[in-house]
């Protein structure tokens, strides 16, 4: 909240001139990078930073069609620094162009030590080139984990050179090279006792930003730099030689936390007061964490890896994933349960713990071993039940603390049935309307979706908003006598029942009545533009939609025509629609299943064909004819 938010908001909005900002597009390749060279050299540092990495970058941008200027941005943080930036415009040093240095702010991160060095780079005319040279120092090899080949612009020629003294043990892993022509040379410079690895690539395509796309580590060619150890004159400095070293480092940070167990025990007892069953206690702790601790993301230097003390999270009532995992563990441990901290990479990251690197994980959760079963509790998922898992962590490898050792396990995968959204209606025709009773239920991630929206609505508007949500803003869809299960309890599925009067849903022409029984038409029009889409498509979770509607055929009418059924069953998804006539009732059944949340590009054409078939099915009506 900014200064004086209450007083000004009304009028600022009123007086502002709105200028639509239209995103910069480089689809036409007005700008390309004619040459980019990056050199990374490991060097011995000082006592505080025994090994540092010097980076020299030179990127030359070319204007191909018409003059413009482009933003140049370089990132740095507490563990790195930008030493110098030099800009050349059309071959001449442009000293007047000075970069600005400031924090990099992202909407959903409250505070991060990430900073940007930014400048506006002019390209003077068609055919002109401008170059940025940047010198940067990374102060700790642990944080120098990956070098990517691609940029926001197409690159004609790219060279990445990594210079590693023999005293430094580094493994370089080449990732996603298969679709790109990247060549490698290695030489040993005996004079300097260094190995020089040079990678060159030509005509690299530009990175493309798309929604619902896999993380860059799945897609773009890059080098994973695994710094294992350094044999310096002062002795060996261990980095991440093996996964055990990665764990040892994490564990050393955990040991430094300094939790106050007394405070947390008192809270655990307060939360579970009057509860005797173990599962109820565990549920109560998880629910309390989800409901009372706000997620606020901090990414701040070493604090970006070290969980906050339990007493601090408890006192603040907010925390990042590490702090929330630590407090969840603390509360459960205080009650005598075997709870452990876990490190995990969400499905945004392509790696697992076979790679000893900080690039492997980006999240922390809590594991609970109870009666021979292991549960994973992620309190940052605010409205999901115990033993239910969000898509982003399902099936992901997880590193679980185990004293000086660690355990590798996987978060269970769940199929679509965890996330069922079921709607059952029993309807009859009432004077041009479809009327009757409706029951809707949501579970798993569909429940989490619903409750996130519900709790994001102001209390005074909740009832109206809920009705609008159920009616999908259709003002002919009148809902009465609504009964909802406790929307503050997400341990069970959410159940909403109501009476429906859907006006004008039946149209009469002469002796015939026409109507349709699907009011929601999920996935309708979900055609993927294969000409534009570059990446695979990721669904937010494995959806499962069931709609069962029964329509009583009105007296004096018979069913003239029933729409055709639809049955599509693919490995990744299934669409099923059936109509049955039985004892004067039409039974409509629809089931949509996204079995695999990851739809590969190779499957887009089939998907589009199937969506067209689904759309066609949605565009069919029931005909009732007068007897």
């Amino acid at each position: 909240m900014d200064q004086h938010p209450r007083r000004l908001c009304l009028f600022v909005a009123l007086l502002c001139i709105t200028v639509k900002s239209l995103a910069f597009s480089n689809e036409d390749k007005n700008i390309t990078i004619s040459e980019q060279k990056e050199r990374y050299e490991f060097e011995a540092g000082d006592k505080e930073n025994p090994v540092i990495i010097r980076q020299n970058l030179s990127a030359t941008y070319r204007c191909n069609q018409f003059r413009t200027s482009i933003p140049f941005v370089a990132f740095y943080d507490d563990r790195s620094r930008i030493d110098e930036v030099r800009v050349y415009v059309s071959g001449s040093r442009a000293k007047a162009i000075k970069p600005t240095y400031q924090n990099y702010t992202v909407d959903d991160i409250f505070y991060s030590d990430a900073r940007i060095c930014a400048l506006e780079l002019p390209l003077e005319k068609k055919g002109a080139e401008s170059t940025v040279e940047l010198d940067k120092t990374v102060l700790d090899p642990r944080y120098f984990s990956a070098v990517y080949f691609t940029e926001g612009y197409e690159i004609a020629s790219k060279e990445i050179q990594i210079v590693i003294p023999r005293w430094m043990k580094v493994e370089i892993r080449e990732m996603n090279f298969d679709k790109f022509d990247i060549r490698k040379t290695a030489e040993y410079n005996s004079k300097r006792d260094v190995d020089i690895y040079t990678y060159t690539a030509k005509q690299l395509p530009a990175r493309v930003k798309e929604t619902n796309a896999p993380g860059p580590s799945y897609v773009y060619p890059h080098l994973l730099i695994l710094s294992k150890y350094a044999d310096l004159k002062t002795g060996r400095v261990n980095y991440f030689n093996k996964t055990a070293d990665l764990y040892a480092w994490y564990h050393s940070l955990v040991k430094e936390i300094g939790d106050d167990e007394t405070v947390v025990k008192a809270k655990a007892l307060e939360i579970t007061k009057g509860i005797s069953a173990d599962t109820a206690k565990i549920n109560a702790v998880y629910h309390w964490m989800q409901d009372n601790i706000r997620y606020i993301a901090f990414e701040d230097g070493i604090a970006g890896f070290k969980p906050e003390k339990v007493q601090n999270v408890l006192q603040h009532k907010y925390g990042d994933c590490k702090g929330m995992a630590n407090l969840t563990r603390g509360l459960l441990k205080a009650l005598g349960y075997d709870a452990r901290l876990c490190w995990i990479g969400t499905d945004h990251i392509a790696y697992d713990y076979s790679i000893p690197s900080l690039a492997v994980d980006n999240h922390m959760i809590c594991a609970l071993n109870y009666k021979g079963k292991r549960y994973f509790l992620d309190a940052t998922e605010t409205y999901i039940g115990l033993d239910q898992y969000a898509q982003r962590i399902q099936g992901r490898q997880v590193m679980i603390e185990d004293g000086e050792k660690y355990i590798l396990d996987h978060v269970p995968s769940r199929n679509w049935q965890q996330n069922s959204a079921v709607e059952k209606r029993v309807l009859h025709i009432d004077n041009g309307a479809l009327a009757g009773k409706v029951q809707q239920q949501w579970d798993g991630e569909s429940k989490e979706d619903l409750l996130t929206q519900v709790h994001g609505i102001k209390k005074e508007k909740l009832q109206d908003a809920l009705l609008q949500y159920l009616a999908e803003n259709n003002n002919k869809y009148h809902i009465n006598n609504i009964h909802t299960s406790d929307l503050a309890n997400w341990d069970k599925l959410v159940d909403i029942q109501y009476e429906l009067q859907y006006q004008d849903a039946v149209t009469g022409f002469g002796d015939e009545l026409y109507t349709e029984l699907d009011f929601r038409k999920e996935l309708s029009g979900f055609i993927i533009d294969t000409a534009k889409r570059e990446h695979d498509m990721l669904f937010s979770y494995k959806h499962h939609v069931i709609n069962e509607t029964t329509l009583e055929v009105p007296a004096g009418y018979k069913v003239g025509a029933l729409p055709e059924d639809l049955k599509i069953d693919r490995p990744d998804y299934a669409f099923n629609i059936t109509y049955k006539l039985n004892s004067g009732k039409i039974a409509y059944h629809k089931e949509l299943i996204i079995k695999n949340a990851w739809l590969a590009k190779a499957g887009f054409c089939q998907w589009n064909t199937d969506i067209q078939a689904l759309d066609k099915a949605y565009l069919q009506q029931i005909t009732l004819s007068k007897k």
Partner: protein
Amino acid sequence: MSVKILFYTVAVLLLHTQVYAQKAKDIREYKERAEAVRQEVWNWDIPAFKKVPALPADDKSSAIVIAKHVDLKASSIKKIKFIGIGFKVKKDLFYSNTVREMVKLNDKVALEEYSQFSFKKFRSLNSYYHSGLATTIVGVRIIKPDGSMKEVKVDEEIVNEEENKEQKSKLAIPDLQVGDVIDYFVRVEELKDLNSDIDAQIFVLGDDKPIMQYSVHCEISDKYFVRYRSANGAPDFKVKKDDDGSVFDMLVKNIPSLPVSLWMSPYRQIPLIRMDILYGSYPAAGQVAGEVRHNPKQAEIKEAILRSLDGEKNAFAMGGGALTSQVKSLLREYKRTNNSDLPNDSLPYYVYYAFRYIAFYRVSADDKIVVGRQRNYVTPNNKKFLFYLEEIMNAMDIPAEFVLVTSRYGPGQDELLNTGDYEYMLKTKGSQPVFMSADGVFTHCTYVSSEYEGQTAPAIELMKSKKRKNDITAFTEEKIGYSTADQNTKIEHIEISLDDAMQQLLVNRHTTLKGSLRADEQKRLLLFEDYYEAERTALAVKSTFMEDFADSRRNRSLAEEYTNAFAKARKDQKDDFMEEINEQFDIKPKELMLYHIDKMGLRHDDPDFVYTTKFTLEGLVKKAGNNYILDAGKLIGGQLRVKPEQRDRKVDIYQPFARSFEYNIELVIPKGYKLEGADKLDKLIDNACGSFTVKTTLEADKLKVHIRKVYKNAFEPVAKWNDLLQVIDAAIDFESQKLLLKKA
């Protein structure tokens, strides 16, 4: 090293040392000051903040403001300043503004709203003319449901970020939960030059949440002149004098949450008090230090605006000369090309369009290449545009006067506080006056913004001679009329046929936009390359900038670059048309076969914006056995929906302007099918506020449907709300209308 250089180096070093020491000192002093301010604010003797009252447990509000208090102080203080060669006692302006709120949080939305603060502890007020520093101090306390109170250690909890070379502090409020009461304040203290402005004050007696008590206390020294106005039923301050100056107090209880957000004009509907605080006396401006003036008379504002106009006219006179030469040069070229003089009555129009061309259309070699859609959204400084234009008009002996109008969304002529409340238009004098203003790239002569409709505006022709003074008696009154629904209209002719598979609609659409409905679509769909060329030709400018560049050795490559940029903009135009169709029909067209601008609507004598599109739509034809159902109601696109909570309305209705939407649909009935249900489409709702009519004519192989929706007035009193709802509901009803294509 010479002595001179040595001295310079020392001075630079000193300066750096001083800046550094100043910073460290600032931070030390800030902490002390913040502590003192928190002590002071928490100890305010306002009973409403002292105890959380019992609130109903079932309260439906997301949040309730239990108490809100604004404390404002303005004084001048003496300060010792280091000015390079010695010390000098200097007077500075001191201004502080504290807003304290105590809010009960009833749900997660409210919790989220109050859970984070960001502020700048120090904000430089230095500019070319002024110097000063603003300091922001924040205090937060949390009161738990059991009555226990905890103060947040703000200085310890904040994290700092760099933002535009200044430090921004962010605070996540700890231990804040639903059910808590947050008691927080934000104080801004400014120490700055005496001639600096103090922020205009607005005390708004309304919010999106109920306010149980709203109070204001201002202490303003006699060094200041205070002018304030209470509007829309806001109460007056209790004003008393003390030794230092004037003290203002106000207390209002039980303000309900704001009623609706649809079609409101907050400046004219919500009780509020606006206040100006000005340093010193300026008798010529009627400004007397120590005086408090409530609800200033219109004449006073007129005097002030006249002075302001005089000053601005002088300021813009210099630049106006060069621009006049450019317009005259264009005019000479026009005369040469057309071999004739312009008729006198055409001159004002020519001048306006020539100046618009110079301001927005003409391209010089140093310009950035911006020829895509973003160019169409450029908004000018209207005042600057008009003063230059007036200079040019004067130079060309076209008498013109300034019309000082107020927006329907700002304070009215009877509620003015200062000259900033006026917007400007120009109007030529004579038997056929022409209004001129510049809302954007496509504004033409005679255009009057819909925001000014229905307003009475003073108008004055500024005297040209320095010896003759402009006088308040010279003001005349200009009554700005309302535009009609016929003037602001969208007319569409839509030919529809079905494809052989009876799945797609083939749509051939001809769209005409008039009046205030034009500008948004012009901005979305027009190409600079096209409108530049149209205006260049109309003004008879001999060569294009592309030709000029091609002839110049230095800029030759620019012509090629512009060709490339034009090609890209033209390619992007297809997406803009796709977006426009998608927005209207709520369906992305399957294919867009044709899009064409027929008339750009750039000038008053050809003002309509007209375009043609040909595309296919899917999803509006449904199969029912051998028959097909057409979603006829969706052929005019989605209609405005009034939310349930907006239906019960207690305030007047400020619509943007009267307007109408007309659709003439011709549906080709596919061979082998018979059309049924056309008669059910017919509808006639017509009342004082608007109308919605549907009329069908069935011919042998064609159905003609004429649909017209009219909002008759820009303003409706709340008593007419039900009439308006009747029209809105009729349009919504139409959405679900269907036609049957029955297999013959």
